């Protein structure tokens, strides 16, 4: 494994009871690369992301992250999670904290920064995702879905993670709010951040991804450049899935 590999997943398996969710996933992600994972719902994409930041414990296989195997029992889970930002489908902002407090919590409690420093970093992170000052003291329930998701992205990037994971970040949004979130994600990809994005937004994949992975039934079926996988898939399963998504886009 080369040293430019930030993440290396080997033969990863996960069972939920008898249900075999991940059936031997192999994936390597280079530093600075943005990878888009597409595939039907229930195929295990979210579980894969949750295994990477150890919210879900894989049953078999290896994950090496930042030159360290994180699937052994000895690992400090919190240190790994601190280095991996996670953006959820339903934003999952802390409901009792304002936008800026959401971003500051990890900086104060995990990185042990003094309040002033945490505040400065949080302000910068919020501005970078287009959340301006008048929204900083709003509570999540007072923000639109698009604003909430951008605050959630700010919360993730403020921790200066080495890897960003996005779990269908626009699936819970009103169509007219999807654009503002995708724009922020495109910017992050262009800044050279390492990211793995589970999404159905093939437009985003074509614009911002370095590589696209097609996932089905707990396995990677096909991977390659965005143009190749999305516009000209080799496998029949990927062709069928992408055809229906492309049809949908054309209708819109």
């Amino acid at each position, binding site marked *: 494994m080369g040293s430019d590999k930030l993440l290396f997943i080997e033969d990863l398996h996960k069972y939920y009871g008898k249900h075999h969710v991940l059936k031997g996933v192999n994936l390597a992600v280079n530093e600075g690369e943005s990878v888009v994972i597409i595939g039907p719902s229930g195929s295990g994409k979210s579980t894969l992301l949750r295994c990477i930041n150890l919210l879900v414990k894989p049953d078999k296989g290896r994950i090496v992250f930042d030159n360290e195997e994180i699937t052994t029992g000895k690992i400090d889970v919190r240190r790994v999670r601190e280095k991996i930002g996670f953006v959820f489908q339903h934003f999952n902002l*802390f*409901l009792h904290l304002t936008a800026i407090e959401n971003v500051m919590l990890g900086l104060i409690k995990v990185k042990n920064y003094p309040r002033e420093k945490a505040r400065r970093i949080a302000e910068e992170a919020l501005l970078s995702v287009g959340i301006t000052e008048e929204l900083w003291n709003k509570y999540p329930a007072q923000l639109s879905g698009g604003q909430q998701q951008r605050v959630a992205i700010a919360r993730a990037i403020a921790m200066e993670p080495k890897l960003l994971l996005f779990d269908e970040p626009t699936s819970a949004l009103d169509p007219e709010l999807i654009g503002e979130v995708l724009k922020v994600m495109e910017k992050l990809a262009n800044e050279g951040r390492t990211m793995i994005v589970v999404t159905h937004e093939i437009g985003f994949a074509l614009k911002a991804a370095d590589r696209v992975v097609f996932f089905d039934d707990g396995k990677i079926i096909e991977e390659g450049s965005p143009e190749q996988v999305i516009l000209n898939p080799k496998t029949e399963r990927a062709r069928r899935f992408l055809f229906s998504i492309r049809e949908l886009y054309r209708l819109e």
Partner: protein
Amino acid sequence: MGFAEEIVYLVSTYGVSLFNAMLLTLEITSIGFTLGVLLGLPISLGRVYGPLPLKALLAAYIELIRGTPMIVQLFFIYYALPLVGIKLDAFTASIIAIGLNSAAYQAEYFRMAFGAVPREQWEAALSIGLSKWSTITNVIIPQGVRIAIPALTNELIYLLKYSSIAYFVTVPETVYVSKVIGAKTLLHIQIYTITAVFYILVAVVLTKSAKKLEERVSIPGLVVKGRI
């Protein structure tokens, strides 16, 4: 004398001792409740997030308290503890009995409230590297306590009335003093009317204050306004 005059007579003659008795009721209630919060919160945390033996121990404690009458618990503390050398005055014994009893119920209210905090809040906290304990103190407790306020209000009003069990160990609280005055004057209905009005007034004030508190700490935007 008519009913109203009799009430005026009772208040003017026994006003001071009634007032002191009511103060004692409020003292027993508030100290007992506070003790209940201080014990109930850690009990619920241990019961939900603690190691298995602690969980079992605390569950057993809650079953023991809920499974026996409060009056038996009070008698045990007042009459049985002196046998092992712990002698408490009636007032202290009452507060401890009420506090220990309320702790078990409050622990259950807190447990339900913590369970009502969405699972996603846990995931979000863990995903930025917070520890389990840090997640509990910074995310679960602040949200859970807000959820628990209505149930805790209920508990407080319940204790206000059940603080009268102190009567059985001769604490001169409201019911005890009312009984004495009733026996002396034979104006039983009149004196208990005064007592009932006192309890109702306090209960109404507590309900209104709790409502205010609930509104003040409610998370902006999250609570549906205009509900009764």
